């Protein structure tokens, strides 16, 4: 199963993103940011496992600033 990680700047944004996604029926979980390509350091990821485009649209329309995305596969 693949997943998509949305990088956000803070835990509050991550929590808010997760809540909004789950209210829209999209399962999500949060983990600490670990991507050297994301500038400024620190931050969190919101992972989703389906509905990638819809999830991104929901997050953006809710005013959550997405600092980057990364698609991941099971093996990663």
């Amino acid at each position, binding site marked *: 199963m693949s997943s998509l990680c949305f990088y956000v700047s803070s*835990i509050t944004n991550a929590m*808010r993103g997760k*809540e909004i996604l789950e209210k829209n029926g999209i399962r999500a979980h949060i983990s600490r940011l670990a991507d050297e390509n994301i500038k*400024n350091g620190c931050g969190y990821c919101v992972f989703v496992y389906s509905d990638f485009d819809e999830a991104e649209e929901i997050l953006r329309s809710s*005013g959550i600033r997405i600092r980057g995305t990364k698609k991941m596969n099971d093996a990663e």
Partner: protein
Amino acid sequence: MKSGRLYNTVYFDNAATTWPKPAQVREAVSRALTIYGANPGRSGYQMSLSTSAKVYRCRELAAEFFNLADPSKVVFVQNCTMALNIVIKGLLRFGGRVVVSDLEHNAVMRPLYAISPKNPVFDVAAVYPGDIKRTLESFEKCIRPDTRAIVCLHASNVFGVRLPIREIGKLARKYGLAFVVDAAQSAGVAPIDMQADCIDYLCVPGHKGLYGPMGIGMLLCNSERVLPTIFEGGTGSFSTDLQQPADLPDRYESGTVNTPGILGLAAGIEFIKTRGINTIAREEMELTAYIYNQLAEMDRVSLYTPKPDLSWSVPVLSFNIKGKNSEEVAEALSKKGIAVRAGLHCAPAAHRKYGTLNTGTVRIAPSVFTTIKDARYLCSVIREIEKDN
């Protein structure tokens, strides 16, 4: 525990801080120290994420309680005073003035004074208790071309007078001003709707009507303004950037947050929601009105407002006994196991308005834990003190 009998105290100092705290608040604080003990928003291990989720839940509860759409705009601060400092000093950093009421607490007046001690940056509007039209006219007359905001309390911490914030908010909106409300004495006993009341910034203590612990307060931001900060530091975000983040809540929330306070506050808000804010207000006002009626029958007692009524006040009452200093009365009450606060209550403006600046007043404020038995006892002791020459 009913009415705080632990120290054989009948507690009427709830305007200073509510006591006792509900059992669920005490338990939540304990859980913060035992289960949710990690630093939220800094790490990725389970306890840190679980603690973060609890902190975020409090933001959600507060946003819902005050009708703010975005929980991330709930900023945790040390207390209501800190929230007011952040907003007032942020709004006036580059000049301008504000309109305040003639009932303000020093939490508003001292930051304003500090901005410009020699040339006041505020204009004072008179409040006419229960008379919305005259009060609004007074606020409108104070608006000048360089006015940036209306900053006012929702309810007087001394006399219980409640301001018509919905109408004042609409006035602020009409003139394009920021509207800042100090809800120190009203949050938890008077409904506040940030959208309908046109409030841009709501400053709230956690430890009064919301029944949380001391040391936690909130600044709720219903504005897209990015105000200059009065303190900066680590936020767990944008760490390589020396500039303070613009995102809320991080912009005003540097350093580790008060997790025990926040979790306790969340339990306090749940407690209010379960009981119902209107029920709480009605019950407390019934007690306040009972006390008022009893005091009104005592020859040497001075009261300063009409009989309190939810249409224009919150359940807070001030009185004096002729020929006695307010502190002397409070001391006499203390000897009988009754806790009240006397003096100026950090609100010299309100005392000036009511002619009590030199004497102070004795303040009574019930909570949800106050009983009619407590009120009867209070009145009986005041009657004894009044008759004692």
